[in-house]
Structures are given as structure tokens and as C-alpha cells.
């Protein structure tokens, strides 16, 4: 599998954590979109993307994050990105998306 997605609820901080494992690209982003948007639909919390095991993301994957954020903003909630790898941080940086999402604890 090119992408596996884990969802867990972080009770301590009262928020959902999504941990994608592998690559988010044109092939796998529909699956990522479904998981993210379903979760946003159901929940009222901030959503954390734990990028620890995310090796690659392309513009379609970034587009999914953006559409998720748009929905979350309506609820005055946010997407918090943690533990991302250097190559992905570079992408957030050059697109300016690091100012749109909350990006923390870069590796």
C-alpha cells in the first residue's frame, strides 16, 4: 500500500490526530480527502496531522488539507501539522502554507 491512514483521538488535548503513513499524491489523495473530510464533518475539535511517517505530499494532497481547513474555519477550528519531514516542510514553506496551517515541531 502506498498510503495508510491512522485516526486516533487525543483525549488529553481533546482533538483528533490523523497519521498518514506513506505518500499522498494524485493516486492516494482521494482516500486522504475522504478520511479528513469525514472526520471534520463528525467532530468539533482541531485536527492534528502527524507527519512522522509521511514521506511525500503533492499539490493534490495540499489541496485536500486546504479544503479541510476551509471547513474547519467555519467552526473556528484549525489544522495543526506536527512532526513533518524536511522535504514536506520545504513545500509548505515555498507555497506559503506554513502561514495558513499551524505548523509545529518540525523534525
Amino acid at each position, binding site marked *: 500500500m502506498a498510503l495508510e491512514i491512522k485516526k486516533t483521538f487525543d483525549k488529553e488535548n481533546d482533538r483528533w490526530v490523523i497519521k498518514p503513513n506513506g505518500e499522498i*499524491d*494524485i*493516486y492516494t489523495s482521494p482516500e486522504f480527502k475522504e478520511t479528513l473530510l469525514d472526520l471534520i464533518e463528525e467532530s468539533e475539535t482541531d485536527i492534528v496531522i502527524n507527519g512522522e511517517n509521511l514521506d*511525500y505530499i503533492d*499539490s493534490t494532497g495540499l*489541496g485536500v488539507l486546504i479544503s479541510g481547513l476551509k471547513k474547519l474555519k467555519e467552526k473556528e477550528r484549525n489544522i495543526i501539522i506536527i512532526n513533518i519531514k524536511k*522535504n514536506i516542510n520545504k513545500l509548505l514553506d515555498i*507555497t506559503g*502554507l506554513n502561514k495558513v496551517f499551524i505548523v509545529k515541531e518540525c523534525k
Partner: protein
Amino acid sequence: MNDNNNKDHIKLSLPNKPEFVSVARLTASSIASRVGFNIEDIEDIKVAIGEACTNAIQHSSLNENDSYEIEFILDIDKLIINIRDKGNGKCKKDIKTPNVEELKESGLGLFIIKTLMDEVECISCEDKGTEIRMVKRIEVGV
């Protein structure tokens, strides 16, 4: 393009299907590594190729049985990559810096390529398809 005659050419032709973009990325990585790029440049090339292939699939004919072609031209001091599709999409001449604050879900691809590569051009030719041409220079001393 007469001056490309003595350069090594590698061609890869892929079906218009999302599942094979990863093959393009891996092939590009292995060519870039063979040519002598450093790890960060290899990653840049991989990302740029991924975006160009994604565009070829998304903005071209949408016919899954069609294919698109990637050509790698290995020059002494640079790698030239052309991605050609058979769609009838229209590429814009200038690549704008996206305003991500607007939370638009699309319009990042060509800008990402532009940032990571030394040159990009997107040329649409009516009825014949679109070609994205990009160049990455090999740093001296690598």
C-alpha cells in the same frame, strides 16, 4: 533541437492513470542520481515531475487509455525534462504566485515546479496537447 542529438535521451511513456505517477517519480530519482545530483536536488526533481505528471493526467484528455510521455535529456551541466500529454487543455503563459490565504484548493502545481526547478515552461498547442518543459542545472563541484 539539433543540438540535442549527442545527448543521452531517456523516454518513459505512462498511461493517463494516477497509480503510475509514482513510477515516474522513482524513474526520475534514479536518473537524477545517476547524473550526479545531490539528495536535495533529486528530491526537488521528484516533486516537480510528480506535479507535471499530475497536470498531464488532470488537465488532458481524461481518457485513461491514452498515455503521456516524459523525456529526459541529459546535458553536461543540466537535466532537461519534457512532459507531453495529448490533451486539449490550455496552459497559461505566466505562472503566478498563489495566494494561499484565499484557501483555494488548486493552482499550486506549476508554481511548485517553478520554485524547485531552474526553468519551467508550459506550452499548449491546440489539438496536439501540452508540453511542460523544465530544467534543473547541476551545481558545479557536485
